[in-house]
């Protein structure tokens, strides 16, 4: 290439480089400015410190469990392991739970003068909303129509029938909830607009006074473990 040609080529390449740089600057926006004031920063700092504290506690408890495992392993016992399994079963909702809580009943609206269509079922969206409200006010364990809600329980519509887990729900539906503080749950629900939401769908949600003993049954089906295997390579027994 002649010298002159090279210069032209270099000039065009420079223009291209400039375009590229501008393109990069345009597409890769700088991160948004931090506009938090000192109080927000303090609040965030406290939040993070609490998180750190919680994580450290969790870590400590796991380390403690590990130490006990080691000790037991040396002694040849397995009670600690059994205790862990029992705890995990409890967390997975495979055990019956008793405690103070509320019993809620969903029934067709029986207001005098009601002339709308008869309602046979409650929509899954409404149930999910109710579950969210219950969780919001501190419910620990929930059962709908005798079906224990776990992390894997689906509330869905199957051909017009509402199903909670594998059970079809028909009116009236009884919802049981256990909470550490049943009074708080009760007052939370009392002020929540959830009853209006039910009324819009021609349903009535009645909430019992806090009861000292509410029994929540274990989950009917054992969670299906698909992607975990025991260490010796065999599938987990079902």
């Amino acid at each position, binding site marked *: 290439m002649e010298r002159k040609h090279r210069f032209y*080529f270099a000039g065009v390449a420079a223009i291209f480089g400039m375009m590229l740089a501008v393109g990069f600057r345009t597409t890769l926006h700088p991160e948004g400015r931090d506009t938090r004031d000192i109080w927000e920063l303090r609040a965030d700092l406290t939040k993070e410190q609490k998180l750190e504290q919680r994580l450290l506690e969790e870590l400590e408890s796991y380390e403690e469990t590990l130490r006990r495992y080691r000790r037991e392993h040396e002694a040849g016992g397995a009670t600690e392991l059994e205790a862990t399994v029992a705890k995990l079963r409890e967390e997975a909702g495979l055990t019956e739970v008793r405690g103070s809580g509320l019993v809620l009943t969903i029934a067709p609206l029986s207001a005098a003068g009601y002339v709308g269509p008869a309602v046979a079922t409650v929509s899954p969206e409404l149930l999910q909303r109710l579950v969210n409200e219950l969780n919001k006010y501190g419910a620990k364990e929930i059962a709908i129509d005798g079906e224990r809600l776990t992390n894997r329980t689906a509330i869905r519509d199957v051909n017009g029938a509402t199903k909670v887990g594998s059970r079809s729900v028909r009116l009236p539906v009884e919802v049981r909830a256990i909470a550490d503080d049943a009074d708080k749950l009760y007052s939370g629900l009392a002020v929540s607009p959830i009853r209006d939401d039910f009324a819009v769908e021609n349903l009535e949600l009645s909430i019992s006074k806090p009861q000292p003993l509410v029994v929540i049954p274990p989950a009917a089906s054992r969670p299906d473990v698909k992607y975990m295997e025991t260490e010796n390579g065999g599938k987990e027994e079902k």
Partner: protein
Amino acid sequence: MWLPLLGLLLGFAIGVLAGWEVPDEYSHYLSIAILAAFDTLIGGWRAYLQRTYDETVFITGFFFNIVLAATLTFLGVHLGVDLYLAAVFAFGVRLFQNIAIIRRLWLAEWAKRRYNREKS
């Protein structure tokens, strides 16, 4: 060989240091223009390797392609058809072809050198 690369780096540095930014709504045009410019640049390189380089063709092609691509995008936006895809497709295909040709020319060159070395 080094001069164009130097020019590219220089242009890039100027672009970064100048701190220019295109408003978001025009970033599409810029992207298409960059693609067109890249295609022309690679085309020019290929022509140089094939000894068919013509400066007038190269420089007019550079600017004309950029303007054409931006115009197509503009038209597309106003007609509601994604016309810029036509530019992306055309430039994209040509880019691949040109790079493939450059690679083959390099390979041929390399093979020739090796042959000569073995012979001597």
